[in-house]
């Protein structure tokens, strides 16, 4: 069946996602944040986007944030306060990362870049995102290659990171890694130029005509945190009997 989420026009999705993140950043109670996540996940399901597939990609950034939140929780606990503050920070970040990740992964690279451009995001940011996405893979693959080559020549890392020979090899690895990645990224850039890529040649964005469905999806994404924000502010109790 057609994936309605991926089919939605890119700049609308991206715009809604940014608003979503902005509103979520103001939510103060953790149950509301959890509700946001649940509702967003359900929205994805309704739009036939397999949102659970993105969960694995969230792990690396979430580990950082979890460590940070845990730190805050510990400090609060020691001060005799509740752990709510750390939890809220963690859940806000989780919301932001999950929403942006699903939106970005539902687009092609070209779509993402032209969406960013049509939202008038600064050119430097567009290029930054474009190149990060292109090159992030390069760094990790150069690393793997070097590690394999090193192992093949019998190198066994010492148990302790701080052992001097381990540190020396590690330092050299990082140094060479950067040079190699730099040289490779230069070649990658040349290869992109060879196929007509150029700062001034922008892939025509918004080739797709906007349709009612695009607006509905965009609005639904924004409505999730907006409703919960209103609930938090007590607006709903004025409206609802």
């Amino acid at each position: 069946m057609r994936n309605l989420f991926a089919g939605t026009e890119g700049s609308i999705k991206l715009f809604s996602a940014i608003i979503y993140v902005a509103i979520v950043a103001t939510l103060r109670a953790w149950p509301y944040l959890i509700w946001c996540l649940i509702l967003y996940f359900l929205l994805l399901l309704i739009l036939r986007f397999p949102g659970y597939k993105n969960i694995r990609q969230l792990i690396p950034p979430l580990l950082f944030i979890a460590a940070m939140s845990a730190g805050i929780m510990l400090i609060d606990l020691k001060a005799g306060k509740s752990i709510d503050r750390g939890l809220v920070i963690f859940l806000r970040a989780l919301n932001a990362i999950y929403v942006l990740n699903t939106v970005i992964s539902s687009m092609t690279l070209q779509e993402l870049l032209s969406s960013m451009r049509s939202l008038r995001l600064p050119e430097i940011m567009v290029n930054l995102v474009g190149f990060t996405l292109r090159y992030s893979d390069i760094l990790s693959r150069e690393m793997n290659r070097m590690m394999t080559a090193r192992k093949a020549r019998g190198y066994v890392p010492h148990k302790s990171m701080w052992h001097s020979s381990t540190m020396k090899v590690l330092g050299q690895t990082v140094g060479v890694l950067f040079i190699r990645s730099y040289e490779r990224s230069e070649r990658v850039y040349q290869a992109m130029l060879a196929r007509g890529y150029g700062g001034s040649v922008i892939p025509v964005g918004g080739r797709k005509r906007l349709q009612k469905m695009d607006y509905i999806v965009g609005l639904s994404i924004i409505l999730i945190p907006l409703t919960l924000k209103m609930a938090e502010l007590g607006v709903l109790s004025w409206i609802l009997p």
Partner: protein
Amino acid sequence: MDFAVEIEDLAFRHKDGTQALKGVTLKIKKGSRTAILGPNGAGKSTLLLHLNGIYLPQHGTVKIMGLESNRENEKKIRQMVGLVFQDPDDQVFCTTVWEDVAFGPVNFNLPDDEVQRRARQALRAVKLEGLEQKMPFHLSYGQRKRVAIAGVLALKPAILVLDEPHAFLDPSGKVELIKILNGINVEGNTIIVATHNVDFAYEWADDVVIIKDGRVLAQGGPDILADEKLINESELEYPVMVKLFRKLPEIGYNNIPRSVDEAAEFIRYKMNKLKKN
């Protein structure tokens, strides 16, 4: 005579000071299959990057289809010349095969249906239909190489340039490659291949350029690869066919066969002649 490429006294120094080209002069005919042969470090890759305006001449001139390569024309030249890089991992970077093959046509602002058609044609030419939605990084090396070729074919360049297309290909990959190249050449395109594979050059090319240390040593038909002095000077080796037939002068031949098929034909012909006598 119409030329696809005319290079006049081209010199180029890399940022770190390496003088990679020291006055290259050569002409490549339209519609030809040209092999640029030379040992590692001869300057082949540096030369190829000049053919589509990635490097602009520091000294001398480069003309593509009569158009001089400079900052103003670089965009036009890139549309005429498709360059396939040696390492597909330098070139293939999109998340799906389809997106990568469409990358070039989208950059040149072709309409959507044309982009689709070209990507489909290019994937058919390299026999990768059905893998459109695969992640390129999950494909084999030979398949990634074909994705790289398709990404350039989709631009329908008048001149197709490949940098060491044989590197790391397995035997069947090499056979496939020749088929793909022959398929393109039928359409009248000029194909330029940089390589140090003398067997390929001897069998496939109709024009051979030998370069070493940033200079052109010789240019001519594939038979220049049977020239003893030239082969020694260029640090290349004889093609297998040349090696074999040089050991058999008693067979009597004017031209050394260029492929196994040609050689078999030739030997059969000689044997039949013997039988008759």
